[in-house]
């Protein structure tokens, strides 16, 4: 088990290396440069600007320089915001996004798992249909519709929550719920599907034959099996919330890192793009590792090899 984790962590390094290399060359070979602007800049000034960031060197040289700096933990400076280092930008925005994601995740799990259990235990009743219909609505409502709708109702009509910005728990709820609802819907459906698989399995039958109470069976046996697909789903989804937060953070003007990936790529802010890609990848890989571990706990038949 410990060895398994160690080996997986060791495997992260080459994976990250591949990711960094691919993204470095893709962004560098795309047309345009960070310094193209509406107003003409004299070539001399442009040359100085480029020299400042080392863009005057050959591309391979820049690549190795970047890798070298990366190993030392230096992610470089932003070209769009020259007074900010990429590390600073990330350390300011990431906690916000993580908080937002945490609220969304809790909301998604609360709503999703419970909805799924109701659906599975009362299969084909109106409870089931109701829960699944709600889940469908959750899935079919894009976040950029749900967000403004929630704002309209709770911020601009009932005046319970602010329509955006950040700072207090009141600011976090609307964006969190908006982000989490779609995931709640998926989780509900996956929980229901997974549990229905388990409902008829031998070990549940055995448990029932042993005379265990329904509640114990549900929580200890069925849910454990039923959550397998949910866990698979949750790993990348948690990380996907980072991308999903692009929309949320634009709508609610939340100061997280969500919009940076897109904006930075548009601005050709090379080092910021690389930093965000790296962060995102690292986060995803970690989540995948966690999923594999949890998988092992839930399904003892899977061995850590």
């Amino acid at each position, binding site marked *: 088990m410990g060895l398994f984790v160690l080996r997986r962590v060791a495997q992260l390094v080459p994976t990250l290396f591949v990711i960094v290399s691919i993204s470095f060359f893709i962004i560098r070979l795309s047309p345009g440069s960070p310094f193209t602007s509406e107003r003409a800049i004299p070539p001399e000034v442009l040359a100085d600007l480029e020299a400042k960031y080392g863009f005057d060197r050959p591309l391979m040289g820049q690549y190795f320089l970047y890798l070298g700096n990366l190993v030392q933990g230096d992610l470089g400076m932003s070209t769009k915001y020259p007074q900010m280092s990429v590390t600073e930008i990330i350390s300011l925005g990431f906690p916000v996004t993580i908080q937002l994601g945490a609220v969304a995740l809790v909301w998604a799990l609360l709503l999703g798992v419970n909805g799924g259990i109701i659906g599975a235990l009362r299969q084909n009743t109106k409870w089931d249909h109701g829960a699944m219909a709600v889940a469908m609505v959750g899935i079919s409502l894009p976040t950029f*519709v749900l967000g403004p709708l929630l704002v309209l109702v709770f911020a601009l009509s009932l005046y319970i929550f602010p329509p955006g910005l950040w700072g207090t728990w009141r600011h976090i709820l609307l964006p969190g719920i908006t982000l989490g609802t779609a995931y709640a819907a998926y989780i509900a459906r996956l929980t229901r599907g997974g549990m229905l698989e388990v409902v008829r399995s031998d070990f549940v039958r055995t448990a029932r034959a042993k005379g265990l109470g329904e509640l114990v069976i549900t929580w200890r046996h069925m849910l454990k099996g039923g959550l397998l697909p949910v866990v*698979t789903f949750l790993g990348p989804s948690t990380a996907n919330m980072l991308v999903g937060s692009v929309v949320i953070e634009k709508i609610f003007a939340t100061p997280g890192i969500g919009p940076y990936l897109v904006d930075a790529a548009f601005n050709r802010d090379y080092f910021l793009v690389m930093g965000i890609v790296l962060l995102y990848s690292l986060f995803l890989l970690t989540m995948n590792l966690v999923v594999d571990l949890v998988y092992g706990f839930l399904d003892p038949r899977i061995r850590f090899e």
Partner: protein
Amino acid sequence: MTTVEAASQEVELVRGTSLWNDAWKRLRKNRLAVWSSVIMVLLVVGCVTGPTLTQLIWGHTFDHQNLDYGAQPPSFRTHTLVPGEVVGPSGDGVAVRSPHGDVIVSHGAAGELPSGANLTLRRSGPPVDGVDGLEPCRRCSRVRAPVEEGPHWLGTDFHGRDLMTRIFKGGQVSLLVGLLAAVVSATIGVLVGSVAGYLGGRVDALLMRFVDVMYSLPYMFFVIILVTVFGKHLWLIFVALGAVGWLMTARIVRGQILSLKEREFVHAARSLGVRGPAIVRRHLIPNALGPVIVYFTLTVPTMIRQEAFLSFLGLGVQPPNASLGWLINEGANQMLVFWWVLVFPGAILAILLFAMNFIGDGLRDALDPQMKS
């Protein structure tokens, strides 16, 4: 040995056909699924033929802008736009002369227009002589001859394009994106997932490492770069969405197969001498198909949503083309002012997704081999 193998193959053959036959029977009994299928067919037919129909009947096209007629609420009536000329201020509005020489006083809306300015008058219903029903419209101007507009049952968007035609057109794009991307991703996903899950060991590690790497690439980043290099094309969206979508299916299938292959019936088949590919095809995939189908029914809407997400960032379908997601995004931006631009595309998408869902559920129940016993 040969006899055992032959016997097992025979058994497989019988079981295999009956699995799909039974499924079909069960599916037909599921009224919700049947009705959903009917609705799906209607939607598909509607989206495919709709734009042609509205053009034939009223002359609407999805991209024709009639700026004089922007953001009109739903109506079954034909409208006529008539040129008018501002005569001068009158009370809180202006007096406008129509081509018949009638002077109409507009209140408030026309604001402070100078004398001689052009202003369009609008008349609801079929053209009749006289002043009745004529009203100056603020956003309209400079119509040189009377223009008749076919009815817009679902209203028009801000640029005066017929919303119904645009929804049909958007439905086409969304269905295409959703179904194609989902089919592609499910096929690749099942293939990779089952091979990885069944073979295990080094192959599994290799494939899953590949999936991991693919996963940890923020695909939005690639889409942005691709789009900036190659321009915005619909096929790029397929590639981008399809290339990412299969990863999840692969993981789910692998997970299923990992637990299924330790099951008794697989051990039994193996001890009977059934070969690997056959076990995967006959035993593992059908048994793992339940979650895959559930996931597939989720993938279609996901793909539609992903496309909408790209549209939100300005990277998806490019105007004047539209997808349902694009229309809804625009509607969400304008819902404070024009409700119909959100409600109608939203309703169509909801119906579409509900239908897809019930069909998916029906298929799932029908295909679940464990329910047979």
